[in-house]
């Protein structure tokens, strides 16, 4: 079997299935984002988290337990929170932790690994995922946000309109928050829909590119080429993390795929489950909505390195 066999019909089937599964969640994220845009003022946002940045990062990393959100949907919500003034470090903590530290992910991981140390796998996945997320958030906290965020995502007090400029422009000197606060009930609803629509189209653009790239690899790459690497822990971990990035699976279901590769060691599966939800081909494009390209590449390489090293160390532990 050649390692790469592309066929458009296979690509279209996989692409469309991810789209049909993902669009409702993108839409949910967009609607939440629209509601936040209209109903949560920057001042209220400042009061939501503790003023102590370390505590804020720690709590943000756990918010996925209360507000579970898949990795695609969380990018939209985070973008809105950032524009409302949420500290970048807290946003990063939530964005990286929410796809892993979530009750849905815990349940699916436990179910998938029944018979393969489910308690150990689930607890390691959630705890290491959380620690990595807040670790990255602390690093981000020390960096200037201008070197990380795309300029349009910085908190701004002078934004005039919701979304794709379809709402009436406020009077001179007035910004969107003032307009939203003064709007009547139906008007607020309209502004919410307009804002949600704008966010949906924005993120859908990146979602399509990411899904298309991932679907090419998902269907065209012969996944059995990595099987000979299963016997060597480091190669198994690295190749399995690479596979997670290529397959770009949803974090609520990826455990079932990882568990099915029975030849691979426990540590390699853990690497798959830690790296895939925080960085894959789809997320590479979605993150482009928030961050500068240089930061995304650094984030991907950093996460790959740290998760790979942790799993390599764990590969010596007999689970």
């Amino acid at each position, binding site marked *: 079997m050649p390692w790469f*066999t592309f066929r458009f*019909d296979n690509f279209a*089937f996989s692409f469309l299935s991810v*789209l049909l599964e993902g669009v409702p969640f993108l839409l949910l994220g967009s609607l939440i984002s629209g509601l936040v845009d209209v109903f949560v003022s920057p001042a209220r946002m400042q009061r939501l988290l503790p003023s102590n940045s370390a505590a804020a990062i720690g709590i943000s990393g756990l918010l996925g337990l209360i507000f579970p959100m898949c990795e695609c949907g969380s990018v939209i919500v985070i973008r809105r929170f950032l524009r409302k003034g949420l500290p970048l470090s807290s946003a990063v903590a939530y964005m990286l932790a929410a796809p892993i530290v979530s009750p849905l992910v815990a349940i699916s991981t436990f179910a998938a690994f029944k018979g393969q140390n489910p308690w150990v796998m689930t607890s390691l996945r959630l705890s290491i995922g959380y620690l990595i997320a807040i670790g990255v958030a602390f690093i981000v906290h020390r960096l200037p946000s201008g070197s990380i965020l795309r300029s349009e995502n910085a908190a701004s007090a002078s934004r005039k309109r919701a979304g*794709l*400029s*379809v709402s009436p422009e406020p009077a001179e000197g007035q910004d969107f928050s003032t307009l939203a606060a003064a709007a009547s009930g139906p008007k607020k609803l309209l502004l919410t829909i307009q804002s949600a629509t704008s966010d949906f189209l924005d993120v*859908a653009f990146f979602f399509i590119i990411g899904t298309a790239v991932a679907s090419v690899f998902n269907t065209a790459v012969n996944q059995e080429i990595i099987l000979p690497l299963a016997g060597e822990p480091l190669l198994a971990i690295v190749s399995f993390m690479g596979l997670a990035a290529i397959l770009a699976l949803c974090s609520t279901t990826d455990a079932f*795929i990882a568990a099915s590769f029975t030849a691979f060691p426990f540590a390699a599966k853990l690497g798959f489950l830690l790296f895939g939800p925080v960085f894959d081909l789809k997320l590479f494009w979605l993150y482009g909505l928030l961050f500068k390209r240089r930061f995304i590449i650094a984030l991907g390489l950093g996460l790959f390195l740290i998760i790979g090293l942790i799993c390599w160390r764990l590969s010596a532990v007999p689970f």
Partner: protein
Amino acid sequence: MNTLFSRWLPCVTLASWSTVLLYFFFSGRITAFLHPTFRPYVAIAGFVLAGMTLVFLFFPADADCCSSAECGHGLSRLAAGKILTFLILLLPVTAAAIYSPDGFGKEAILNRGIITDASALPQSAKAPFSAPELPLPTNDATPPTAAATPQPATPADYLTRTPDGRIVAEVLDLLYAAQDNALRADFENKPVVLVGQLMPDASNNAGGKRFKAVRMFMTCCAADARPVATLVECETLPAFPEMTWVKATGIATFPIENGRRIAVLKADSVEKSSPPDESMLF
């Protein structure tokens, strides 16, 4: 031009996506793409997108699309970039919806690797009994007796049968039965009918009389589906093309080969079949 970007292109995009979602849901094609849990969300999203389309229609824009620093579209500073943005939003979805089949082809199945061992699958609720401790395969060809394991229900409680008394089995049933003493007792040496897609078998086919009956096992959506297969053995290999849906009728056996117990359906007949209503297994 401004109206085109700020009103009509988003409107067309939203309407197209809404149409695709609602079409797949109401035509029933969704069954090949998504796990039943996720299907209602597609309909809800389709209606919400239709609502958003109406908002664009009845509340016209008054300004440029992507004209301010708020715009997230990197390409949208120029008219060509704006058009490209909407082409990316429109074309792949539309093309995939028009040209996508309702299943994977042979290449994608081979690329994913066909699973013939239930230990590579989650301990699913498909197995009607809780699986007891699995005995290690031995060289002794005599399989462990079903009497050695508890049997809380009789097979008649959950097995579907054809009018002539054959058990209607899924590929997964036989794979799990190869691993589970109690479940195996319900199928072993019993007449069984099985539907799957025909694929050649190279790994357990010394006599050249076996093929694989393949089904896709989906967890969430088709992108995560993995091919699972049971071996079918017959006197003469059927002359159907690969990936043809076939119905194999015969006796379920569970020999130990290469140190592990596998499921082999010894078929009396193999005939062409129409795809089942749910082409995926869950």
